[in-house]
């Protein structure tokens, strides 16, 4: 069937395997031609393998050739194939003196058998058929090997009786036809079906495989020849020799799969029939009919046995191959990742690392596996990381960790990891799988931002110096006056002890007040990382307003604050959020510098929304923001102020976004002034537990 290989557009990979068959028989004309030729040759072969003097064919190939052709072609071609074999059927039968009516009957029964076999197999296997699984092989044996010959043999025998042709009885005809068709399907049918598949693989075979196949073929031919041709007829005492070809058949099945096995069986079949037909070998003892029967039974059993074996083997091998392919695919996915992937025991002992992991730490895989990766983390981060992993082992979920790592060059980097817990059958965490990547650059950027934020805080506090001095001098002034009043009261007679006590209490109170202000400023000036805590935004706003109160007074700005009651808490960094608010308040004040004094007002308010957000609104009555500047307002180094650096709002946005919030600016509807809104997600009480 090789000549039928035609060019086909490349089908998608998953469809390729099932399309292999069709790829070879692309046109019904080619298929019809091949089938009719094969049918003719098959008929000739069938006549040749007839045991003389009785016209009994041990193996009748045409039916199985037709059946195999139907299995390899789509059903819409079938009628065409049936028509195509009509001339060859007649041509082959006419040579052997068969009456015209009988030829027609044979044709009908042959077609019936092929149709029943192909139809039932296709039906059972659900359309596409391939003799490569144990399941499909069962359908093939049931439909093609058993059912079709079984039913069509009744027809055959009926036709013979109807035509009154030959001397055999009805059941004799049925039996002969049945067994010869069964054997033909088992041997020739499987060869055609499996080889149509294997043809493509042959191109890929290596010389070694070809040599092995040649050796096998040679051995098989020799052994079969020795057993079935060289042996004297009816060698009952040496019946054991029948098993001599078996090792070769097993060899074929094990090493060459279905195709190798079917070819070997066909060789054995042909040689044994040829030997028996020539009155040689163990089966040439009784009447031709009985010889044929026992040979057929022998071959059928060998065939079915090996067919099952080969199918199981093939199926197993393919599932192994599938497994290997999928494993390779996964391995490739893992190994080509730029992300680091590893598996480790709860005590951080590594059990698997991917290529990227090895590359990152510049170590061999063997140097890493079996070691605890905690050693790759700098000392200060170790305990925290171990604690986090322990919590995952308890929670059995997914977690993300960021920690520092020791780089091969001795410096420190940052890693971000997503860890999954893998639980054993008893529910305990047996292993953890983690995917990580280097975030040193991001961390550096964050640190740069933090430095920037710090500088901008310094600048803001610098701007507020006068106001802060006022805030501190207020209590200091009170303390001094109180102390001096007290010393004068101590000199006076009578001494007013009660008043002195009251004075001391007031001094204490004012002292605390002053130190409060200083502490506040110090926190604001300290350079630090984000420290998340639960914050009451109303409190935070009042703290900031306390800092800027004096400034507002200095600039003759009236303000109004509106605090929403029962505001949900927000998880955030106190200092950074204060910085944002401070920035907005100072900006608002700056915006009103040119306004008449009685038109300067600043409103700061808080609000909670249904959707779980907290909003802080800072609104001024200045000149507002030019519409063309609104979109660029939060960009770094964009400023509308003469002395501005253009950092305040961009840092504010960075801080707010680090809190998963939003900052927006808009001009007031009244046409006077602008409003800035900071929206932060509220902390969910439920998720806190």
């Amino acid at each position, binding site marked *: 069937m090789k000549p039928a290989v035609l060019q086909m557009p490349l089908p998608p990979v998953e469809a390729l395997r099932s399309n292999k068959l069709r790829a070879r028989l692309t046109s019904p004309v080619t298929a019809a031609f091949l089938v009719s030729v094969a049918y003719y040759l098959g008929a000739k072969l069938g006549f040749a393998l007839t045991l003389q003097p009785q016209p009994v064919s041990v193996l009748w190939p045409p039916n199985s050739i037709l059946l195999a052709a139907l299995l390899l072609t789509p059903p819409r071609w079938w009628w065409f194939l049936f028509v195509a074999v009509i001339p060859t059927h007649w041509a082959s039968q006419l040579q052997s003196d068969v009456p015209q009516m009988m030829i027609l009957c044979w044709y009908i029964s042959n077609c019936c058998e092929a149709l029943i076999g192909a139809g039932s197999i296709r039906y059972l296997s659900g359309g596409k058929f391939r003799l490569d699984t144990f399941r499909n092989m069962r359908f093939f044996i049931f439909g093609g090997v058993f059912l079709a010959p079984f039913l069509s043999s009744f027809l055959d025998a009926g036709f013979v009786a109807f035509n009154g042709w030959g001397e055999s009885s009805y059941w004799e005809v049925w039996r002969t036809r049945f067994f010869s068709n069964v054997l033909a399907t088992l041997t020739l049918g499987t060869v055609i079906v499996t080889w149509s598949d294997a043809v493509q693989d042959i191109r890929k075979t290596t010389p070694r495989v070809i040599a092995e196949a040649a050796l096998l073929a040679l051995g098989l031919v020799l052994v079969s020849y020795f057993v079935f041709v060289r042996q004297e007829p009816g060698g009952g005492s040496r019946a054991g020799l029948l098993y001599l070809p078996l090792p070769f058949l097993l060899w074929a099945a094990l090493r060459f799969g279905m195709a190798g096995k079917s070819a070997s069986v066909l060789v054995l079949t042909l040689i044994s029939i040829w030997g028996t037909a020539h009155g040689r070998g163990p089966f040439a003892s009784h009447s031709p009919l009985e010889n044929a029967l026992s040979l057929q039974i022998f071959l059928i059993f060998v065939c079915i046995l090996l067919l099952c074996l080969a199918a199981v083997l093939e199926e197993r091998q393919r599932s192994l191959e599938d497994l290997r392919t999928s494993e390779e695919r996964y391995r490739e996915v893992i190994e080509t990742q730029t992300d680091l992937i590893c598996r480790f025991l709860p005590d951080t002992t590594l059990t698997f690392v991917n290529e990227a992991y090895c590359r990152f730490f510049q170590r061999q895989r063997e140097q890493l596996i079996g070691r605890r990766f905690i050693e790759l983390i700098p000392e200060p981060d170790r305990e925290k990381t171990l604690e986090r992993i322990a919590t995952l082992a308890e929670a059995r979920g997914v977690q993300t960790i960021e920690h520092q790592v020791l780089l091969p060059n001795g410096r420190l980097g940052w890693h971000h990891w997503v860890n999954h817990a893998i639980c054993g059958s008893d529910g305990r965490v047996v292993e953890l799988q983690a995917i990580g990547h280097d975030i040193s650059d991001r961390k550096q950027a964050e640190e740069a931002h933090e430095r920037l934020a710090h500088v901008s805080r310094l600048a803001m506090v610098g701007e507020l110096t006068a106001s802060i001095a*006022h805030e501190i*001098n207020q209590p200091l002034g*009170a303390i001094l*006056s109180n102390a*001096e009043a007290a010393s004068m*009261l101590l000199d006076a007679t009578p001494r007013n002890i009660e*008043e002195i006590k009251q004075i001391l209490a007031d001094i204490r109170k004012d002292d605390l*007040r002053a130190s409060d202000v200083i502490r506040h400023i110090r926190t604001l000036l300290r350079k630090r990382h984000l420290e998340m805590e639960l914050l009451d935004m109303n409190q935070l706003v009042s703290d900031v307003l306390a800092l800027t109160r004096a400034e507002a007074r200095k600039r003759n700005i009236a303000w109004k604050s509106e605090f929403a009651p029962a505001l949900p808490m927000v998880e955030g960094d106190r200092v950074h959020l204060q910085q944002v608010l401070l920035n907005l308040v100072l900006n608002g004040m700056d915006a009103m510098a040119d306004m008449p004094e009685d038109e300067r007002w600043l409103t700061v308010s808080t609000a909670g929304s249904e959707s779980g957000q907290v909003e802080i609104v800072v609104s001024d009555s200045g000149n507002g923001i030019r519409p063309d500047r609104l979109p660029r307002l939060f960009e770094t180094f964009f400023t509308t102020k003469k002395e501005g650096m253009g950092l305040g709002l961009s840092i504010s946005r960075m801080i707010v976004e680090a809190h998963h919030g939003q900052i927006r600016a808009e001009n007031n509807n009244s046409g006077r002034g602008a409003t800035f809104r900071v929206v932060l997600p509220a902390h969910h009480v439920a998720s806190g537990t």
Partner: protein
Amino acid sequence: MNSTTSIVHVVDDDESYRTALQRLLKAAGYQTRAYASAGEFLITQRDSARGCVVLDLHMPGPNGLELQEALSIRGEKLPIIFISGYATVPVSVSAMKAGAVDFLTKPVEREVLLGAIEAAMTRAEEIRSTEETSRQYHGLTQREREVLAGVVEGKMNKTIAAELGIAERTVKAHRANVMQKLNANSVPELVQISGRLKNSVIPSNSSGAQSEIRPGASPA
């Protein structure tokens, strides 16, 4: 040490500071009254002729400078001592120009504060007596004022009579009237009173502050 009618008015929004200041001033023997805002001070009935004001510069609502201006418009000549948590030079200069006795920064030491208050009280006394003299001056007739001017310039009666075209005897009578109306016992006293009048009457006639007013900022 002071007359019982001299009161120190403390205007400061910071309650704690207000109380402390009141205590100190009370211990130093002053009578005090406290106000939490400029507005409260303005609406309170008080004897404007006596005492001084210790005024916080920065307060919600009208601030210290605005209160100073308001008092000036109302013609209340209370001496003012400014006290502030912080002060910039321009602010303190404008306060001093507008007639403040002193400009102090918190925390203020007792001696400095009491010295400033003493100076303010002296100023209050001066203001009070100047106003008295001014009132007396306004009681003089045109002819008497002309005679006074001549006397202060050190002219002889005869010269004055010749310049004004009146008899020398008439000049003597006018001169005696002036001495009596202005409570002066001698010519040098008359010159002194006249000098004081020049300082106070002229600024009240021409609007705006006069840099002439240079009170004893430092009581030394």
